[in-house]
C-alpha cells in the first residue's frame, strides 16, 4: 500500500487525501524499516504544502484581484522613485553662486580678481623682469613693517 502511494506521489499523481493517508501509514509503528526514512520527509511536506496553500488563500482573501494590481503598481512606482533618488545622490554637487543677488556676486568676483592681481604683483610677476632697474624684494617689506613696530 505504502509502495503504491509512494509511487503515485513521486509521479505527482497523488491527491491531498492520498498524501495524508501515506503520511499516516508511515507514522505507524508497524511500518517496515525501509520506509522509515520517508517519515520525516512527509511530515515536513505535509506542513509545508499545507502552509503554502493556507498562505495563498490568505493573500487572495486579503487583497482581492484589483487591490493586488494596485499594490504591484504602487510598489514599482516606489521602487522607481527610490532608484531616481539614489542615482541623483551620486551626482557631483553643482556649482552654485555664493550670493543670490547677482550684483553682489559680481562685486565679490571683482574683489577677488583685484586681490589676486595685487597679490601677484606683490609676489613679483616674472613677466616684466627683463629690464628691471629698481627692485625691492619682500624681505624689505618685512623690514619696513618691523621698523614701524619699533616706532610705536
Amino acid at each position, binding site marked *: 500500500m505504502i509502495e503504491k502511494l509512494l509511487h503515485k506521489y513521486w509521479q505527482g499523481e497523488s491527491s491531498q487525501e492520498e498524501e495524508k493517508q501515506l503520511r499516516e501509514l508511515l507514522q505507524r509503528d508497524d511500518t517496515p524499516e525501509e520506509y522509515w526514512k520517508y517519515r520525516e520527509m512527509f511530515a515536513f511536506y505535509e506542513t509545508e504544502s499545507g502552509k503554502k496553500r493556507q498562505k495563498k488563500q490568505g493573500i487572495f482573501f486579503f487583497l482581492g484581484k484589483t487591490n493586488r494590481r494596485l499594490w504591484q503598481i504602487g510598489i514599482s512606482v516606489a521602487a522607481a522613485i527610490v532608484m531616481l533618488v539614489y542615482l541623483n545622490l551620486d551626482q557631483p554637487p553643482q556649482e552654485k553662486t*555664493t*550670493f543670490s543677488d547677482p550684483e*553682489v556676486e559680481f*562685486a*565679490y568676483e*571683482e*574683489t*577677488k580678481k*583685484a*586681490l*589676486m*592681481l*595685487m*597679490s*601677484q*604683483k*606683490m*609676489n*613679483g*610677476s*616674472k613677466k*616684466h*623682469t*627683463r*629690464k*628691471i*632697474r*629698481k*627692485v*625691492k*624684494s*619682500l*624681505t*624689505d*617689506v*618685512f*623690514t*619696513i*613693517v*618691523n621698523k*614701524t*613696530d619699533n616706532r*610705536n
Partner: protein
Amino acid sequence: MKQYIFLLIGLLSLNLLPSRLHAQNDIIDRLMDQYAENDDFTQIRISPSLIRLFASKEKKGDEKFADAIDQMKGLRLISGETANGYRHFDDVVNSLDRSQYEELMSMKDEDENLLFLVKPSDIPGKVSELIMVIGGQDSFFLMSLDGQLDLESIAKIGESMDIDGMENLERLEELEEDDEGEH
C-alpha cells in the same frame, strides 16, 4: 572739566580730531571723481558693508581669499586705458602724504612702473591701508585696500601662481624666525 568736554564736542563736530574711520578725501577719491564720467576708466568701490557681506559667507575653495577679506574694510580701484599712464603714476606718487604713507616695494621695467605703499596701523605687523599704483605706456591702475591688513595674507593669495613669489615668502619666513631669535 566742563570746558574740556565742550571743546571735545566742538572738535568732534568740526571733525578736526584724527579718525581712522574717516573716509580719506585723498588723491584716490579725487582721481575717481575726476574720471567719473570717463568711459575709458573703470572704477570700483566696495563699501565696508559689502565687504562684511563677503566675509560672512563661508565658501568652499575660496579659502585663500578668506583671510584677506576678513581683514578688509574697503576697496577702491580705478583702472583705465590712457596715454597718460606715467603722468597719473607720478601724480599719485607726489600727492600721497609721505609722512603717512611708506613705500613698500617698487618696480620699474620697460612696460610699467609699479609701486606699493602702506599706511602703518597701530597694530604691529599690520597696515591700515595698502596702495598699488601701476603706470604704463597705455594704461593706468590704482588700487587701495583699507582695513587691518596683514601683508602675508595678501601675498599668499597669489603665491601658488608664481615660483618667484614662493621664494620671496620663504625668505620672509626666515626673517621672521630671525626676529623671533632677537627678541
